[in-house]
């Protein structure tokens, strides 16, 4: 029998595909185009994977290039980390919800600060009025973390925080609060966003970008030396996605931001293998399950190559990307909000199939309100069912070898590489952001997508198709979280009390020393920690940084 070569057999498959297309009158002009203009055919074959080498490009989980996952067995024997975040009112209110999530099986404490905290304003600042504790936890002084942490089993859990620009100040507060409570901050596990470049897309950039990046790298350096189990940067890809980006833009601009932080750390003389394994990403998963799963596989492979080839990383840990992925909150709709349970579950399936290490999860009612205990329970239960009832974790990377998914993985990787190159042509992430290029590119994609929804070309069930004729108004029956005005009063009273009781001399000296460090080139972390010990407030510490580095001015791109 004649042995056919691979080339001959691919040729034969392509001919057969052509025949099949003709016989079945497959209209090629009716192909679908997905994000990044990847054209989707009716069917995929080995002919679409010519040149894809199994061992070097797909391989085995836990091994370079990590396409299939960072760990050999992934989540076959234990679930990934459930990591819903919450934060509202004052520390007492948030702690109560954390305890509920703990009792329901989550071993991660994850907080979202309120808008004034994100912007570095104390709760009694005039611009903070109306917003204190509304969408997140109000944080003013170390005392807030002392209340938040007291009585919590932090040894058995991780602590994470969604704070992009001022992560270093949050971390300093956490550090001092743990010391004061007799816990060892050096053993802390968890992750903090610490990504001022991604904050541009969420509108929470406080310091000018250069200053913000220096502060971020200070925290990375400090944690690598002093808190080795902590992930000091959790790049906020999700901010890009919530800011309208498509999956290719999400990965490309997040990697460009990563390149910026890495280069700054290397310029300080840090060794890539000392900190590469401490970088992680917080992605979004859209409802398009297969595209998103392929995106994660492409991202891991590209990250591994980038670490090894561009930055010369030598250890396996440096090359394997770890990430959390949250079903994209932008997919949540106002019409018949219960359907968001399904949309969010689709995103979480993509995260699971793509091999995420953690799954924050949006709540079905978040279009209307921050989550109630009930909607949090439904969100946590959704990811628990996926991880522990469906068997999709029983074998690693089950989509590998799918002609379509492997093709998509290759295509997404290729397009991400092209987009990263464009950012480099601007001179890197900071310049590309300041020029408005990135915001404009994202907005142009987003508007195209929204027009498709307006015209009905893109279906959103209950919004532009299958509308309910006499549907109930969700405002009439949803239990909406109310801001507790007493929590706001309590918060402001506590802040004033801390200001009144502190040692003024120690306080002013600590802030003076911080200013000097910021004006020089020393790592600012020890000085921020010292200021936190002297009970300087969040707004006061940020105020010093703002004065030294200058504030960020929003680009008015429309």
């Amino acid at each position, binding site marked *: 029998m004649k042995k056919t070569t691979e080339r001959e057999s691919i040729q034969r498959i392509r001919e057969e595909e052509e025949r099949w297309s003709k016989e079945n009158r497959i209209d090629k002009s009716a192909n679908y185009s997905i994000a990044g203009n990847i054209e989707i055919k009716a069917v995929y074959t080995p002919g679409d994977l010519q040149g894809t080498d199994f061992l070097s490009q797909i391989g085995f989980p836990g091994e370079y290039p990590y396409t299939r996952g960072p760990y050999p067995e992934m989540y076959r024997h234990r679930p990934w980390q459930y990591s819903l975040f919450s934060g509202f009112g004052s520390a007492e209110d948030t702690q109560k919800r954390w305890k509920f999530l703990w009792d329901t099986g989550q071993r991660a404490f994850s907080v979202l600060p309120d*808008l*004034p905290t*994100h*912007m570095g*304003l104390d709760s009694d600042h005039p*611009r*903070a*009025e*109306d*917003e204190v504790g*509304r*969408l997140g936890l109000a944080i003013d002084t170390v005392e807030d973390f002392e209340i938040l942490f007291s009585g919590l089993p932090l040894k058995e859990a991780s602590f994470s925080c969604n704070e992009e620009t001022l992560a270093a100040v949050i971390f300093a507060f956490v550090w001092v609060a743990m010391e004061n409570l007799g816990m060892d901050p050096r053993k802390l596990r968890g992750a903090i966003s610490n990504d001022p470049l991604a904050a541009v897309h*969420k*509108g*929470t950039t406080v310091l000018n970008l250069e200053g913000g990046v220096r502060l971020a790298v200070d925290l990375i350096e400090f944690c690598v030396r002093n808190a080795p189990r902590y992930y000091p940067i959790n790049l906020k890809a999700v901010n890009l996605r*919530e*800011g*309208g980006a498509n999956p290719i833009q999400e990965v490309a601009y997040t990697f460009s931001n990563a390149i910026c932080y890495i280069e700054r750390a290397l310029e300080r003389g840090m060794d890539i293998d000392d900190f590469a394994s401490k970088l992680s990403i917080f992605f979004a998963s859209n409802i398009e399950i297969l595209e998103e799963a392929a995106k994660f596989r492409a991202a891991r492979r590209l990250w591994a190559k980038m670490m090894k080839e561009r930055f010369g990383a030598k250890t396996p840990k440096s090359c394997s990307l770890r990430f959390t992925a949250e079903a994209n909150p*932008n997919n949540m*709709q*106002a*019409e018949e909000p219960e359907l968001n349970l399904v949309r969010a579950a689709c995103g979480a399936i993509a995260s699971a199939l793509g091999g995420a290490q953690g799954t924050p999860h949006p709540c079905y009612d978040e*279009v*209307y*309100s921050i989550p109630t205990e009930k909607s949090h329970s439904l969100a946590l239960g959704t990811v628990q069912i996926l991880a522990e009832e469906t068997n999709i974790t029983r074998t690693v990377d089950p989509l590998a070898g799918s002609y379509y998914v492997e093709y998509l993985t290759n295509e997404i990787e290729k397009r991400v590489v092209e987009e990263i190159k464009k950012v480099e042509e601007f001179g890197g992430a900071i310049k590309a952001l300041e020029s408005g290029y990135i915001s404009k590119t994202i*907005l142009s994609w*987003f*508007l195209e997508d*929204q027009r498709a929804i*307006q015209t009905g070309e893109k279906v959103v069930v209950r*919004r532009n198709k299958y509308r309910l004729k006499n549907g109930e*108004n969700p*405002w*009439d029956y949803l239990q*909406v979280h109310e*801001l507790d005005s007493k929590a706001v009063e309590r918060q402001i009273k506590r802040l004033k009390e801390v200001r009144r009781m502190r040692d003024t001399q120690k306080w002013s000296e600590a802030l003076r020393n911080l200013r000097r460090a910021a004006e020089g080139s020393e790592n600012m972390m020890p000085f921020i920690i010292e200021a936190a010990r002297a009970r300087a407030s969040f707004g006061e510490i940020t105020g010093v940084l703002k004065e030294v580095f200058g504030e960020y001015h*929003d*680009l*008015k*791109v*429309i």
Partner: protein
Amino acid sequence: MRKRIRVVMAKLGLDGHDLGAKMIASFLRDSGMEVIYTGRHQTPDQVVAAVIQEGADVLGVSILSGAHLGLVKKLMNKMKDKEINDCLVIVGGLIPKVDRPVLKKMGVHAIFSGGTDIEDVVTFITENIQR
């Protein structure tokens, strides 16, 4: 010839989620209006200053943070102080049903939330513009 309708689109307060504002701005522009975007994190004073400076026929305010009652009250008081009576004020965002009549009472002309058909916004503006 009537001059083009001028719209100032503003993000009021600390909320940075501005996709909705940008989307409406872009669609209003497509329908022939002139749109000026203030950027994020605007105080009521800054927004009113923009309305005066631009001679706006319409002010679109986007708030998704839930802080609309306090912020819009400050904004409308400021509008009254400056005796701006000919500007159509539209609030967009996450506005609970019970708060809608409260905002209307403060002088807001219309409230639109997510998922609104853009044609409805255009029609409202062209039919109600005060000039």
